[in-house]
């Protein structure tokens, strides 16, 4: 059985200095590792960092007590963890030595983290295989871009509109999907993704294969997101604007994920993941909850799409292919189903690895397949597996 002694430590509610030290070490260590990785040029150094990361996870695998300790520290020192984490995220661009490439990678990684969190509602919580997250991402991006280009709608207004449009499509996809299950459901979502891609490619008003060019950058209080940030005598490249926007989106996704996970809705999704028939007999309307999962996935993915469109200012159907959906799925599997932190880590790893190690980029699909197979064999629950919910008294 599980060792009981750590629980006594958990029940102590006050924050101890040891907890603060553990939290600070974990957050600063993680930030440092990411920073070294982003700024490294030498591929041998990058491989060495990866080996270090791998060793860390091997240690977690061998000694689960380490993970328990870290989780307990974060629970006890919640406000310290939140404050320090926010400070690190806010200060991070200043530590990037003005490298616009490093910031670009961070923006993309964060957008993928949002997409992976979106898919996690389905794949992680409810075990619904959805290969159409890339399509929802695209619908969000195109809606936002078309509104901005053709009608001059402000970016901030296109964000919610794009999300609503993509959610409507999510329901549209969810509806026929409910007649199928598992493998067949996966096929329906693959088909949906391909249909969306083909439509974007063939309509005139979406710009066809050439896509949409000249998507305006958002402005806030007269400050254009295309301009660099001057702050405290430091000058951050223009990517920093989108870094902060993407960080806000990640925060929104994390809060949503948390709230839904620790609610009646998250439990209902978990129930139908574990045993659909038993879930129905508990009064759970399985069809409705599956459609909800599609809708929530599409809603968040569309947010990421809108930001992406405004960021790169040029989108084409090839940004939203089947491969994008597969990559997002891999991030969830690698990171850990139904674990917020795990999914974000998976997104960062799978975005940054092919960028930093060019050798992977040429064999992207092969790389993704090998990673998935290795994980399913070695650590099927992902880097950070799902954790039991905690209730008030604990």
């Amino acid at each position, binding site marked *: 059985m599980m060792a009981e002694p750590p629980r006594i430590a958990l029940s102590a509610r006050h924050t101890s200095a040891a907890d603060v030290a553990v939290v600070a070490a974990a957050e600063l260590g993680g930030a440092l590792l990411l920073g070294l990785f982003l700024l490294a040029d030498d591929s041998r150094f990058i491989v060495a960092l990866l080996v270090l990361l791998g060793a860390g996870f091997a240690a977690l695998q061998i000694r689960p007590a380490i993970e328990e300790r870290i989780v307990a520290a974060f629970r006890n020192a919640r406000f310290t963890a939140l404050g320090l984490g926010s400070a690190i995220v806010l200060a991070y661009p200043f530590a990037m030595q003005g490298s616009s490439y490093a910031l670009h990678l961070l923006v993309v990684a964060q957008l993928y983290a949002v997409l992976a969190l979106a898919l996690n509602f389905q794949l992680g919580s409810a075990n619904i295989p959805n290969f159409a997250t890339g399509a929802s991402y695209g619908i969000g991006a195109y809606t936002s871009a078309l509104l901005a280009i053709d009608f001059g709608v402000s970016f901030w207004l296109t964000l919610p509109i794009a999300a609503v449009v993509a959610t409507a499509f999510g329901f549209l996809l969810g509806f026929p999907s409910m007649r199928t299950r598992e493998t067949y459901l996966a096929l329906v979502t693959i088909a949906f993704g391909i249909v969306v891609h083909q439509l974007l490619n063939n309509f005139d008003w979406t710009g066809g294969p050439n896509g949409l060019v000249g998507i305006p950058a958002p402005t806030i209080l007269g400050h254009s997101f295309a301009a660099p940030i001057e702050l405290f005598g430091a000058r951050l490249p223009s990517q920093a604007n989108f870094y902060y926007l993407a960080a806000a989106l990640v925060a929104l996704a994390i809060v949503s994920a948390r709230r839904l996970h620790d609610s*009646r809705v998250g439990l209902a999704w*978990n129930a139908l993941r*574990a045993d659909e028939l038993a879930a*129905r007999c508990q009064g759970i309307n399985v069809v409705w909850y599956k459609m909800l999962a599609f809708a*929530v996935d599409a809603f968040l993915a569309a947010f990421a799409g809108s930001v992406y469109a405004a960021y790169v200012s040029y989108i084409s159907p090839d940004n939203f292919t089947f491969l994008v959906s597969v990559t997002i799925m891999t991030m969830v599997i690698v990171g850990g189903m139904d674990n917020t932190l795990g999914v974000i880590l998976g997104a960062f790893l799978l975005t940054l690895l092919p960028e930093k190690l060019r050798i992977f980029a040429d064999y992207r699909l092969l790389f993704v397949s090998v990673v998935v197979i290795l994980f399913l064999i070695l650590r099927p629950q992902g880097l950070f597996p799902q954790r039991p919910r905690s209730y008030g008294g604990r």
Partner: protein
Amino acid sequence: MAVPLLETRNLSIRFGGLVAVSRVDLSLAAGETLCIIGPNGAGKSTLFNLISGIYRQSSGTVRLDGRDITGWPAHRIAAAGIARTFQSSRLFGDLTLVDNVVIGMHCRTRTGVIDALLRPRRARAEFEAAAERAGELLRLVSPGLYERRHTLAGTLPQADRRRLEIARALASDPKIIMLDEPSSGMDDRDTDALIEDIRLTMAERPGLAYIIIEHDMRLVAALPERVVVIDYGEKIAEGHFSEVRLMPRVQEAYLGQKAAHA
């Protein structure tokens, strides 16, 4: 007589040429316990699946409190007040015991996606209250379960799985609980302990009606007042256990031809 709590009329289901349940009439009053016995493959579990909405009947009706619930989907029937357990227990194995019982309260709680996202305080309060009640239910069914309420359901031994299933069924505040072979896969000692726990639970909630499918004759003799015998999908006898067991037709069907002639 008042309207029965649950009433089936002519309830039948055919799978192709096979008539699995044929024209079964059942009637159950509030607070009553009914036992369904019969040989393997007689159609007892199929009958449960019909009543709980997992299968759709070929003909016949099901009424709950006088209301026609024939052909309703399973989740609406659960919400209407019929909870059940399964013969091979179907728990949510990768969730904790508390989670399992809170899920059982699904149709008695309200939080939706919008509430969870935009009114976190209210959602959280409902969630914590549900968890608190889940703890009480677990303690009621078995103090041992309460002790282990934060462990995963998949790690429980067989007897505790049954208890947890009963707690989960109770969580929906049902009018009727249907237990599908609660003693299956358990030895005599575990069965005795389970009978005791079921008895306590029954005493705790006098208004609750039970339908129990059972093979273990000791459990049948110990618990219910009324017994229905099913064979080849048909009801062949009904009455008190002490009378029913003496009927030749029942002995033939249930205990085998040899026993009947012995």
